[in-house]
């Protein structure tokens, strides 16, 4: 509850700052990108951190969300206030539906095989988006020439509203009995099954949820850039999302948020050394894995309510989402 109040205060405050122009346009765009990457990391965190599976085709779901919402937003002429939430919902639903279809056969497999089959599906989604026009003769995705003129509906406020909704939904589900069922599958699938948990149902549920939010992030991304092409959603993008989740700590929402912020903002700050930044990135990954295999935050989750009760009611408002801090500096 107190988290929500604080978030609303922070969001309105920072939106005010952004709109009044005290934060430059460039920083705003970087922040929006941070927000999109946060949703991506949070969504993969459901499948990797909570469900304990390793999907390597997450960018495919993002691509689906981006393309469906872009096609939708280009196609209809309603007021921009209505087109944005609808576009995001449609993007998310399509990704969730395909995730559900893929999940049914894929989740029968375990561990590495699941990783491989999702990788296969991700690549197929990309190839289909690239070539579907030339086969069916539609003018839908425009293939490699990229889909242009998407209405730029994504702004600072609605991005972080989506981040908040994502956090809230994931948090609520994970604290419910469905969430505990999902966690039990991660910890020991055989034991969970023996306790009467329908593992197939919960695995598909977690996977679909994960795909849904990836689709939402994709939709935001389409509205943010205005131009999308299939090449942006390749295998490397999936790996990038996975790296974000793992660095933050699998199963930690605050970890995902922090590492998404750092990994998005750091390359921007290091523009001068852009040649070496990918090297630093991969070295960081290897070093973290060797010295702290659980990721930076482990499975620790941050909650202001717990912090407050720990401090004995002494309110020491440490900002919940770290991302909000950056523009002030």
């Amino acid at each position, binding site marked *: 509850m107190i988290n929500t109040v604080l978030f609303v205060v922070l969001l309105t405050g920072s939106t005010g700052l952004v709109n009044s122009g005290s934060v430059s346009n460039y920083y705003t765009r970087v922040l929006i990108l941070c927000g999109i990457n946060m949703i991506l990391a949070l969504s993969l965190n459901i499948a*990797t951190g909570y469900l304990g599976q*390793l999907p390597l085709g997450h960018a495919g779901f993002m691509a689906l969300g981006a393309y469906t919402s872009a096609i939708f937003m280009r196609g209809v002429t309603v007021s921009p206030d209505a087109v944005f939430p609808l576009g995001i919902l449609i993007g998310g639903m399509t990704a969730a539906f395909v995730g559900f279809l893929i999940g049914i*056969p894929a989740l*029968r*497999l375990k*561990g*590495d*095989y699941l*990783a*491989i*089959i999702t*990788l*296969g*599906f991700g*690549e*197929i989604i990309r*190839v*289909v988006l*690239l*070539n579907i026009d*030339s086969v069916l003769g539609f003018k839908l995705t425009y293939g490699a020439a990229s889909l242009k003129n998407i209405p730029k509906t994504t702004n600072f406020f609605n991005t972080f509203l989506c981040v908040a909704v994502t956090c809230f939904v994931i948090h609520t589900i994970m604290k419910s009995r469905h969430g505990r069922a999902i966690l039990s599958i991660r910890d020991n699938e*055989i034991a969970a099954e023996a306790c009467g948990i329908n593992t197939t149902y919960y695995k598909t549920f977690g996977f679909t949820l994960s795909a849904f939010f990836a689709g939402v992030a994709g939709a935001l991304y389409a509205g943010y850039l205005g131009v999308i092409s299939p090449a942006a959603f390749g*295998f490397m993008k999936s*790996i990038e999302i*996975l*790296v974000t989740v*793992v660095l933050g700590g*699998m199963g930690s929402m605050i970890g995902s948020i922090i590492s998404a912020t750092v990994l998005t903002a750091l390359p921007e700050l290091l523009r001068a050394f852009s*040649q*070496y930044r*990918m*090297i630093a*990135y*991969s*070295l960081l*990954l*290897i070093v973290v*894995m*060797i010295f702290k*295999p659980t990721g930076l935050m482990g499975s620790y989750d941050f909650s202001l309510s717990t912090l407050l009760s720990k401090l004995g009611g002494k309110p020491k408002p440490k900002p919940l989402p770290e991302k909000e801090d950056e523009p002030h500096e």
Partner: protein
Amino acid sequence: MSLFSTIVSQFMNGLQTGSVYALVALGYSMVYGIILLLNFAHGDIIMVGAYTAWLFMVNFGQSPIIAVIAAIAACTVLGVVIEKVAYTPLRKAPRLSLLITAIGISFLLENLAQIIFGAGAKPVPAIVNVPAILLGSVSLSGTAIVTIVVSVVSMILLNLLIKKSKMGKAMRAVSEDTGAAQLMGISLNKTITFTFAVGSALAGIGSVLYCAAYPQASPTMGAMLGLKAFVAAVLGGIGSIPGAMIGGFAIGLAEAAASAFGLSVWKDAVVFGILIIVLVVKPTGLLGRNLQEKV
């Protein structure tokens, strides 16, 4: 060109790429069989091999034979170094961390190559100079024949190594039961290092053969090649040596068939589609061992 000669030349193309895939897939399969790691860096070892060959032939002006030997040696050393530096400290860690480290290594190699050699592709001079053979109306390219012969010979040698030599026996023992193998006095570290060395050497041979077919080296050439070879290894049943060979040839032929039907842009989708069908029908691949998990 008659229909028959088209079919034969496409078949040869398929076998040629297939044998490269098979060689690379063997490396994936051997490593997976022994430490259950999907070695994502394997594809980038090929890239290093290709650059080594290019460096020796163009910059140092050496003969192709020396370049080939250098490429294979570089790959072998690199494979062992990666294993020692990145994978050994993580042997007790969760499998996922190991996998992510492998992905990190793969990133690192690609970006290092990009900084050292630049992002553009480097043309590799012809490595194999064998004239095409004419069989009636059908012309068989010399490179294709050399590729197929070399890879078949290396596969036979590998099979002998695994079946007959003492080290091969140790490898089989470790992949069957690591704990029991250690109790029998087999050095785990030595065996794993040896496996990486052999797998990377095969990748080195694969890289030279790949350069013979597509004469250029670029920083990201290993990514897609590695992915396809990996699919081949899974298709045949990961951890199984004959499976990797069958998988490699099957993927190569499927790609050639897709191109022959005018679907060359859908080549990747065809490959991954086959993978998905096989995994859904028979999750351990064509020749994979079926491991029952005991509680």
